[in-house]
C-alpha cells in the first residue's frame, strides 16, 4: 500500500506540473488541506465516504491539490486534481491513499440560466481499492439575485478490487435537485433532494435529502448546521442449497439464487465551523453524528457513529508568469499629470491608442514596444475618466484590438465597447 501511496503522489506531480504551465493562461490555486480527528466510520469522511464502521480510530490526513479555472466569454471551465493520504494513529491499521480529479464546464445561456457538465473520478486504496467515476450534466437557474436552483442528472460508476470476495462494480443514475437561498447578508439556507432513477434493489428506490444553514457570526467566522436523511434500498443475492429445481428452458440447478431486499436508513447531523485567519490560512472544526438503522435479519444491529476533526487549510495563488497574448492595460502615474499607459501584447502589429484624450484622432498615439512585449506610452492627462480604444495596424489592415475580459469597459452607444481609463 505504501507503494500505491507513492505512486499516486508521483501521478499528482506529473499531472499538476503541466497544469501549472497550462495555468499561465488560467487562474490557478494550490491548496494544502490537513486535519486530524477521530471517526468511528469513514463514511463520515467527505473525501472517502466509504462505509467502514470497523475503522474506529484517530487519524490525520493531508490532501494537496491544484485548482485551475478559466472564464472566457459566456463559458467557464475548472479542473481540480489532487492526492490524498490518511494514516491512522493506531499501529495495526493501514492507511488510506489515493487521488482524485474533477472537471466542470458551464455556459451562461442568459442572465438566469446556466447549463454545464461535471465529471470526476477518484481511486483510493486501503486493504482493497475503490474506484469511482461520474459524469453529470446540470442546469442552474438563478431564480432571483438571492435564490438558486440546480438540477443534476448524475451517472456514477463504482467498483471495488482486491476484496476478499470477488471484485464488484455498480452503476447508478440519479436526479438531484439543490436549492440555495440567501435571506440576508448573514444567513444562507440550502436544501437538496436526491432520487435514484434505477431500481436499486428489491423494488426499493433510494432517496435522500438534506437541509442546512450557514450563519456568519463575523465576516471571517461562520458556522454551518446540516441535517440529512438517506434511505438505501439494495438487494443482495444468496446461494442456497434448496434442492434441485427444474426449468423447461434452463434445465435444473442445484444452487438457486435468492434475492433479498434490504432497506437502510441513515440520519445525520453535522456542525462545522470555519475561521479565515488571513487570505491564506483557514481553520476548520467539524463534528458529525450519524444513526444507521436497517431491516436486515443478519445485519449488525443499528449503530450510531460519531466523528470529530479540526484542521487547517493553506492555499496560495501562484504567479506562473503571464503568457497571454493580450493582458489588461495598466496605468502608472509617474508624476503630476503624467501617466504611463502599458499593455502586454504578443504579435507583430503596431498599436495605437486613441480616445477622449486625443479627440479620437486616428490612428492615435503610437504605443512603443519595450522589453517583455510591453507596449507603452506616456500621457499628460488631468484627473478624470477617459474612454479609449487601441488600434492594431498590421500590413495595410487596421482593426480595433479586442481587450481582455478583465479590462474595465463601457458601452460606447454605437453598439461597441470602449476601454475606460481612470486618472486620479
Amino acid at each position: 500500500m505504501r507503494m500505491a501511496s507513492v505512486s499516486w503522489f508521483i501521478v499528482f506531480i506529473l499531472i499538476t506540473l503541466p497544469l501549472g504551465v497550462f495555468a499561465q493562461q488560467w487562474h490557478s490555486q494550490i491548496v494544502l488541506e490537513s486535519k486530524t480527528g477521530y471517526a468511528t466510520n469513514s463514511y463520515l469522511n467527505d473525501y472517502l465516504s466509504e462505509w467502514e464502521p470497523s475503522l474506529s480510530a484517530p487519524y490525520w490526513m493531508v490532501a494537496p491539490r491544484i485548482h485551475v479555472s478559466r472564464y472566457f466569454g459566456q463559458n467557464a471551465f475548472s479542473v481540480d486534481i489532487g492526492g490524498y493520504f490518511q494514516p491512522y494513529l493506531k499501529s495495526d491499521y493501514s492507511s488510506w491513499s489515493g487521488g482524485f480529479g474533477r472537471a466542470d464546464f458551464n455556459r451562461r445561456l442568459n442572465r438566469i440560466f446556466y447549463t454545464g457538465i461535471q465529471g470526476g473520478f477518484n481511486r483510493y486504496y486501503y486493504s482493497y481499492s475503490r474506484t469511482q467515476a461520474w459524469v453529470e450534466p446540470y442546469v442552474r437557474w438563478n431564480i432571483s439575485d438571492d435564490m438558486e436552483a440546480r438540477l443534476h442528472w448524475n451517472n456514477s460508476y463504482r467498483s471495488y478490487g482486491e476484496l476478499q470476495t470477488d471484485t464488484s462494480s455498480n452503476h447508478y443514475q440519479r436526479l438531484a435537485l439543490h436549492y440555495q437561498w440567501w435571506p440576508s447578508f448573514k444567513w444562507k439556507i440550502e436544501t437538496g433532494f436526491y432520487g435514484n432513477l434505477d431500481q436499486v434493489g428489491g423494488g426499493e428506490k433510494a432517496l435522500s435529502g438534506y437541509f442546512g444553514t450557514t450563519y456568519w457570526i463575523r465576516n471571517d467566522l461562520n458556522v454551518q448546521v446540516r441535517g440529512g436523511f438517506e434511505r438505501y434500498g439494495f438487494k443482495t443475492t444468496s446461494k442456497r442449497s434448496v434442492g434441485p429445481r427444474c426449468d423447461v428452458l434452463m434445465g435444473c440447478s442445484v444452487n438457486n439464487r435468492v434475492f433479498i431486499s434490504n432497506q437502510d436508513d441513515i440520519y445525520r447531523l453535522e456542525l462545522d465551523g470555519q475561521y479565515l485567519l488571513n487570505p491564506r490560512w483557514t481553520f476548520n472544526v467539524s463534528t458529525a453524528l450519524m444513526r444507521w438503522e436497517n431491516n436486515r435479519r443478519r445485519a449488525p444491529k443499528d449503530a450510531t457513529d460519531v466523528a470529530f476533526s479540526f484542521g487547517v487549510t493553506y492555499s496560495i495563488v501562484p504567479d506562473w508568469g503571464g503568457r497571454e497574448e493580450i493582458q489588461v492595460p495598466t496605468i502608472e502615474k509617474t508624476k503630476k499629470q503624467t501617466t504611463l499607459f502599458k499593455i502586454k501584447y504578443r504579435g507583430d502589429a503596431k498599436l495605437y491608442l486613441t480616445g477622449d484624450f486625443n479627440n479620437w484622432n486616428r490612428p492615435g498615439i503610437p504605443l512603443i514596444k519595450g522589453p517583455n512585449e510591453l507596449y507603452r506610452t506616456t500621457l499628460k492627462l488631468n484627473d478624470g475618466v477617459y474612454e479609449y480604444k487601441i488600434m492594431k495596424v498590421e500590413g495595410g489592415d487596421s482593426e480595433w484590438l479586442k481587450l481582455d475580459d478583465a479590462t474595465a469597459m463601457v458601452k460606447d452607444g454605437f453598439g461597441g465597447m470602449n476601454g475606460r481609463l481612470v486618472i486620479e
Partner: protein
Amino acid sequence: MDAWSLNEKGAFMKYFNIQDTRIALLIVFLIGSISFSVHQVQASERASSVSLDELEKVVQRATKAGLSAQQIEDLVQRGRNKGLSNQQLVQLILPAAELSEQDLPGHIVIQKAFEGLAKGVPPNRIEPVILDLKTRIQKARDVVDPWMKKKDKEKRFLTKNGELRTLRNLMIEATAHALSGTLSTERVADFLNHMDNNVNEEFLNSRSVAAAVRILPDLITTKEHPDISNKMLVNAINAGFTASEFHQLPNAMEMAQNNSRLPAKAVANGFTRQIKNGIAANQILQNLQKGNVEGGDLPPKMKQQPKGPDKPPAADKKKNGGKK
C-alpha cells in the same frame, strides 16, 4: 399606316436592334438610376440647405458658450473630410452649444461626435446618440442640482476636493452615463440619498462618489436588488475604494458570478464580507475576478460527490476490518 413609314420604322428598329428586350430593359434601368440619383442629389441639397454662414454662427455660439474653439474647428474639419454636409455638422455641434449655454458639460457631446467619426459611424447614426446624450445630461442636472443643495455639500466635499462646481460637473457627467441603461433618475436619487445618510464623512471623495454613481447600472445586483447595490457601494466608499477601483468593480463582480456560479446576491455578500474583513480593495477585485467570492485565497470546497444514495453501506462486502 403607310408602307414608307412601316419600312422606315422597321429599318430604324432593326438598325438599333431595339427589339432586343435586354437592351430595352437596360435603357429603362439606366434612365431610372439617373432619375433616382438626381432626386437624391436634390434631397441632399435640400438637407444641406444650411449655409456656411449659418454653420459659422453655430460654431461661434458654441465657442461663446465655453466650448473649445480648436475642438470645434477640428470637428468641422474632420466632418468635412468624411463628407458631412453643413446641416449634419450643425446637428453635431448645436446640442453641445445648447448644453454649454445651460451650464452643462457640452464637451461630452463633442467627444461623442469625435468618437463616432473615428469609428466610421454614419452621421445619421451619430445624431440620435448625441441627442440621447444631451437628454441624459439634462435629466442628470435635475437629479444632481437638488442633491447638491442637501446635507451641506460645501462643508462635506469642498474642504477636501476643491470647488463645488467641479463636484457638480463630475456628478452630472457620472449621472448622465448612469442613465444610459435602464436606470431611472429616481433610482440615482435614491442612491444619493442612501449615501448621504450612511457614508462615513472621513472617506468622502468626490471622484469616488462620482465613480460609484457611474457604475451603478452596471452592477449585477442593481436590476433586482437596488438596495443591495446601495449598501455595497456605500461600504466600498467607506472602505476607501478609489475611482479606478470602482470602475473595475462591475466587471469583477460579473466575472465572480460566472466563475463561482453563485447568484448575484451571494457575490454581493462575499464582496461585503471581504471589505469588512479588512482585505485591500485591489485584492478584493482580484479575488472576484478569479471567482473567489468568499475572500482571500479561500480554497473552493472539495467534496468528491454530494452525499446521496450512490454509496450504500456495502455491508455485504467482506472487507478485512481495517487491520494490516
